[in-house]
């Protein structure tokens, strides 16, 4: 209804604007004619003017003429008598007069809109237009407008129906997706039409949410197996060792050795357990208080902490220039993520290798902390997988660590609304090395917008 009212209002406006324009143009034509005749009078006198008026009123056309002498006696023209002119001091003005027109059907009286005035020495000149002409134009226009209105109303109703149908269909598709997901199929995704409208946005958000849920569900599923493996195995080993100690003949030294072993093994289990706990805290919705902080000094201090150990391990550790880089973050978590990356870099870079620690702004405006090494690297095909919990590559299965280090870095990056990337590192004889990059959204004066 509102729409119809708007269409009506718009059409009315167009009608009045156009009608106004039409009569204005007609008036201009009248005025031009008047001026022309006026100049004819100036050059050819009353006689010349009379010739023109006689000629023009005889010719068919939309304009009417009248020439009268100074006493008001008609000399020539379409009017049979001088209309009653309003008394006025001005030289020329406008007025409405009837005129008798002879047509095939007889004599009709038309209303005219006239420009009139007294010329030099008193003769009166009238030039007028038939008001029926503009009325006819206006009525033609009204007709056209009515058609246009009808068509546009019909179209808009049709378009409205189609839009409503499309919308309900897309809502139906979205709710279909949610129903399937509720039924347990986390892999189902809503279709994004690519129209860039609100429905696409909604579908995209739904898909992002599902991807996250699926990732977590997957993590939980694999974590269950992995915890079983990573905790049950050492506990079983421990149990066997204790059985062995209890079953053998008492020997103080052997018993102490078994106890030391038991302590080390439990420490390992506890460490894994703590790491799992921390990861689930990071992944859960538990709110972490993020504060405005500069990551440059964090990187600086971490470099200072690791530099001696790296040197001891026969590695050359360098660090890039750091300027203030503000983020909304958790200093301890960022430090811990960085420590994990440095631990890894040192563990997998052979003696004589290099580790380069840097932070800076990326081309896309975000900030990054980069730990690049010249070590063994990770094949590109495995780079996504190693970020998952409890994943250790075949090559390193024998080494200690529960495979939670990179998962923690990934979780920390996600908590900050950033990304964790694994790329080629420093090339060396051994390979391309590895660069672990934590990308964090920048927080600065210009676009210091952050969520969470």
């Amino acid at each position, binding site marked *: 209804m509102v729409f119809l009212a708007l269409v009506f209002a718009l059409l009315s406006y167009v009608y009045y604007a156009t009608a106004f324009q039409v009569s204005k143009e007609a008036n201009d034509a009248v005025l031009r004619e008047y001026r022309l005749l006026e100049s004819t009078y100036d050059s050819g006198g009353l006689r010349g003017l009379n010739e023109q008026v006689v000629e023009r009123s005889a010719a068919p056309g939309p304009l009417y003429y009248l020439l009268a002498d100074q006493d008001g006696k008609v000399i020539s023209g379409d009017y049979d008598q001088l209309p009653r002119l309003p008394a006025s001091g001005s030289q020329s003005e406008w007025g409405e007069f009837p005129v008798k027109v002879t047509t095939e059907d007889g004599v009709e009286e038309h209303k005219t809109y006239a420009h009139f005035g007294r010329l030099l020495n008193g003769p009166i000149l009238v030039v007028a237009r038939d008001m029926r002409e503009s009325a006819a134009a206006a009525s033609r226009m009204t007709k056209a407008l009515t058609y246009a209105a009808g068509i546009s109303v019909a179209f808009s109703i049709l378009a409205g129906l189609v839009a409503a149908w499309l919308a309900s269909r897309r809502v139906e598709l979205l709710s279909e997706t949610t129903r399937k997901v509720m039924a347990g199929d986390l892999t189902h995704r809503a279709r994004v039409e690519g129209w860039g409208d609100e429905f696409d946005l909604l579908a995209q958000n739904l898909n992002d949410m599902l991807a996250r849920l699926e990732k977590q569900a997957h993590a939980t599923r694999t974590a269950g197996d992995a915890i079983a493996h990573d905790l049950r195995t050492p506990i079983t080993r421990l149990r066997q060792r204790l059985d062995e100690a209890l079953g053998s003949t008492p020997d103080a030294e052997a018993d102490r050795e078994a106890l030391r072993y038991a302590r080390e093994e439990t420490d390992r289990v506890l460490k894994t357990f703590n790491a799992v706990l921390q990861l689930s*805290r990071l992944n859960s919705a*538990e709110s972490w208080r993020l504060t405005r902080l500069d990551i440059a000094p964090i990187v600086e*201090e971490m470099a200072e*902490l690791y530099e*001696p*150990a790296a040197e001891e391990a026969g590695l050359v550790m360098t660090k890039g220039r750091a300027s203030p880089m503000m983020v909304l973050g*958790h200093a301890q978590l960022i430090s811990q993520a960085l*420590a994990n990356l440095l*631990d890894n870099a040192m563990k997998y870079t052979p003696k004589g290798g290099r580790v380069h620690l840097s932070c800076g702004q990326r081309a896309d405006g975000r900030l990054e902390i980069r730990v690049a090494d010249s070590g063994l690297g990770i094949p590109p095909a495995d780079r996504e997988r190693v970020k998952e919990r409890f994943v250790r590559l075949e090559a390193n299965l024998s080494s200690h660590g529960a495979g939670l280090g990179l998962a923690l870095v990934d979780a920390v990056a996600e908590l900050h609304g950033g990304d964790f990337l694994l790329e080629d590192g420093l090339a060396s004889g051994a390979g391309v090395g590895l660069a672990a990059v934590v990308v964090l959204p920048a927080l600065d004066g210009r676009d210091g917008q952050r969520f969470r």
Partner: protein
Amino acid sequence: MKVLVVEDDFELARTLKRALEDDGHVVDVASDGVTGETMASVAGYDVLVFDRMLPHKEGQEVVRDLREAGVSTPVLILSALDGVEHRVQGLNAGSNDYLGKPFNTDELLARVRSLWHGRDRNGPVTRLQVGDLEMDLLARTVHRGGAKIDLQPREFRLLEYLMRHAGQVVTRTMLLEKVWDYHFDPQTNVIDVHISRLRAKIDRDFEVQLLHTVRGSGYRLEA
């Protein structure tokens, strides 16, 4: 010294009591928050060890109320909730230290001793001395046997912490927390390397070694 342990897990309380007694302390045990609060406010304990999750009254709440009542005895909170956020909460409630469960017994003993010693020095200290090793906190200088030793700022802070806790075992975790302010354990033994660099500066040219490694626990600075 006199220690009160408030812990509702009977087995853990028993082990704690024995470990602390073996370390030379007199130990009382309470098994719920309200009893613990009453005992802590009446008897003169040197250090209080509170579990966080306690029957009747939460350990952290007890600590807050004790502090409001003017009891300034140092408190160590034990808790299974050992995330960074929980530690900060615990410290804000008025406790002096926070140890996550499960913990290493040596770690606990070292921290209890450190709390007691920390309390001992109330006036502002400007000089520290261990054997012939001297530290001037105002001039930021270190001398051993009269010879000046140049230290990096971090080495200075590390040595200051060790000297303030001279004679006690200081664990790697304690050093990371107090000297570097990191509340997590790196895999690599980064602390050991810092210690050995410090040792090279203060011990290498001298006959008597001051900085000792305590196997399985940490370090001790002692004349």
